[in-house]
């Protein structure tokens, strides 16, 4: 009779537990985060595979069917030139998500690089952090607008209209949103550097490059993951804002912000043209933000396990 509880605890002890399975278990309890994950995955799958199911050409002009309402042939109606809105939203989603994710990766790489260097090498700390402060003091939205307006034509000529503007937008968003990541990473690296395992690694003569890659990087993964989610949300909103101000992608190359900008002029006639792309942006950003929230809770060892 006394054996039974003992075997149970023994079984529990021997079950394999790793850091990431704990994180995942905690993540799953966050309802908002799980819902956000489902919606985000659903949106990504829809933009990837949707055009194969709903195979309307987003650029096909069907002027007799202009400003149509919702129907089986056009689930989101058509615009003033008779183009299918659903197809445009799907293709626009590809571009918006691609911009968001690429710009986030760029800002993450820059931010982590600056943060690790500033945190690990004391000599670089001052200059790099002053640089971060300087970037934080720049008025970003005006500068983004200026840079895109001024360099748009050159890049279009060099890389073609779509690739050129894609590179430009990803570059400017990435290069202006790395500062928060850098600050957080620097703080964590400063604390990690004083820990015993780093001291031990250094005492056996490990070069700084190896210490950073093997001992520091895995330990700062959690703040980086959280800022990755926030970065995607931020990049999608910034791209949409630029497109909305008429300074993003050209109008034959739909993104969600561009569709919103084009639809705004026909708002009284066909409000659906504003609502669908706006809903797409809002849902994506909301789901990503919820994922970030859940991830932050799951990666925080003080909350986890409660």
């Amino acid at each position, binding site marked *: 009779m006394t054996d039974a509880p003992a075997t149970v605890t023994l079984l529990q002890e021997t079950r394999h537990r790793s850091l990431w399975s704990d994180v995942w278990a905690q993540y799953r309890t966050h309802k*908002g985060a799980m819902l956000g994950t489902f919606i985000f995955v659903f949106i990504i799958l829809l933009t990837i595979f949707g055009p194969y199911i709903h195979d309307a050409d987003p650029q096909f002009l069907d002027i007799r069917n202009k400003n149509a309402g919702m129907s089986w042939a056009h689930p989101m109606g058509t615009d003033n030139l008779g183009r299918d809105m659903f197809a445009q939203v799907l293709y626009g989603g590809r571009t918006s998500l691609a911009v968001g994710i690429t710009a986030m990766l760029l800002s993450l790489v820059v931010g982590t690089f600056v943060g690790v260097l500033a945190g690990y090498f004391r000599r670089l700390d001052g200059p790099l952090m002053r640089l971060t*402060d*300087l970037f*934080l*003091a*720049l*008025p*970003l*939205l*005006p*500068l983004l*607008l*200026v*840079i895109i*307006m*001024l*360099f748009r*034509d*050159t890049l279009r000529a060099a890389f073609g209209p779509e690739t050129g503007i894609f590179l430009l937008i990803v570059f400017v968003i990435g290069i202006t949103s790395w500062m928060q990541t850098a600050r957080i990473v620097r703080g964590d690296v400063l604390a990690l550097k004083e820990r015993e395992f780093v001291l031990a690694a250094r005492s056996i003569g490990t070069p700084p490059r190896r210490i950073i890659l093997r001992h520091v990087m895995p330990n700062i993964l959690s703040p980086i993951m959280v800022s990755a989610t926030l970065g995607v*949300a931020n990049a999608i*909103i910034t791209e*949409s*804002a630029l497109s*909305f*101000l008429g*300074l993003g992608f050209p109008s034959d190359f739909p993104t969600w*912000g561009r569709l*919103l900008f084009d639809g*705004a002029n026909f*708002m*009284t006639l066909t*409000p659906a043209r*504003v*609502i669908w792309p*706006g809903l797409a*942006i*809002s849902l994506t*950003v*909301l789901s990503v*933000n*919820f994922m970030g*929230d859940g991830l932050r809770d799951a990666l925080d060892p003080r909350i986890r396990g409660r």
Partner: protein
Amino acid sequence: MLNYTLRRLMFAIPTLLLISFIIFAILDLAPNDPTASLPLTIPPDVRQQIRESLGLDQAMPIRYFKWCVQFFWNEPLNILEQWTGWTIGDSENRLRVISWQTRSPVVDLIVERMPQTLWVVGMSYVLGILIALPIGILSAYKQYSWFDQFGTLFSMAGFSVPTFFTGLLFIVIFSVNLQLFPSVYDTTHEVTDWASFWVQVRQMIMPTMVLALFNAAQISRFMRASMLDNLQQDYVRTARAKGVRERSVVLIHVLRNSMIPVVTVIALGVPQVFGGAIITEQIFRVNGLGQLLIVGIQGADIPLVQTLTFIFAVLIVAFNLVADLLYGILDPRIRYD
């Protein structure tokens, strides 16, 4: 404290100079020509003369230096003269920063556009704070209640849904379908009596509410977190134990301590609100600073864009300083030395 303020101010000056140089360099590096939008019938030599009259034939450092002189020395002198009525030196021939599009001094344009932006943006920020504080306080006090869940959802939605979507949605709902408010902000409208005041209120409701909801979402999160931190402190238990009424425990003891970080967050948010107003002004056709910037960018009006962008930068640096100083003033535990 004074020492710290002075040191920060001394540090702000080179920062701002560097920022102005960066903005100038970006504008200058850009491969575009301000005469490009002029008619093609203008002969090349006249075009060259136009370029010279704009000062474009000089080297970039010289042009930057001249802009600095005009902006940091001539314009403040002009403002001083206007306020006091004095005449300092040769004020007739003093060079000013001239907009290429309108041929009028940039500072005059900005002064002209400032009130609209300040009204809409300022009002929306105040409204946002007024909405955010009660939500933050209540959702912290009743943590995990339905109100707290609702507040969390509200703030999540508030900063996830971009203002250009809420703005358009408001227009579709309130001006297209319900016909309650005008969708275009009329800046020529003058308030003379109650009827015209009501018209002004009605046209301000939508632009201010769009920005206010966005701001409220962020501030209410900070308010909630700060209240939660303080509600668990020992002094709250002490206050309750000695029989202080619950009302004054929350609204006096906890609230005053929780406001310290929130006030600095509010101060830090002011420049971002000005930046965000660019989009809102575009939606509701408010001809404020943001709209001026967009027009300037589209017309390649470099002096205007340079000056406006720099003013945004000044706002950021100034409010960062204000936030740091406020923190020191409000929280006596913080000592700068």
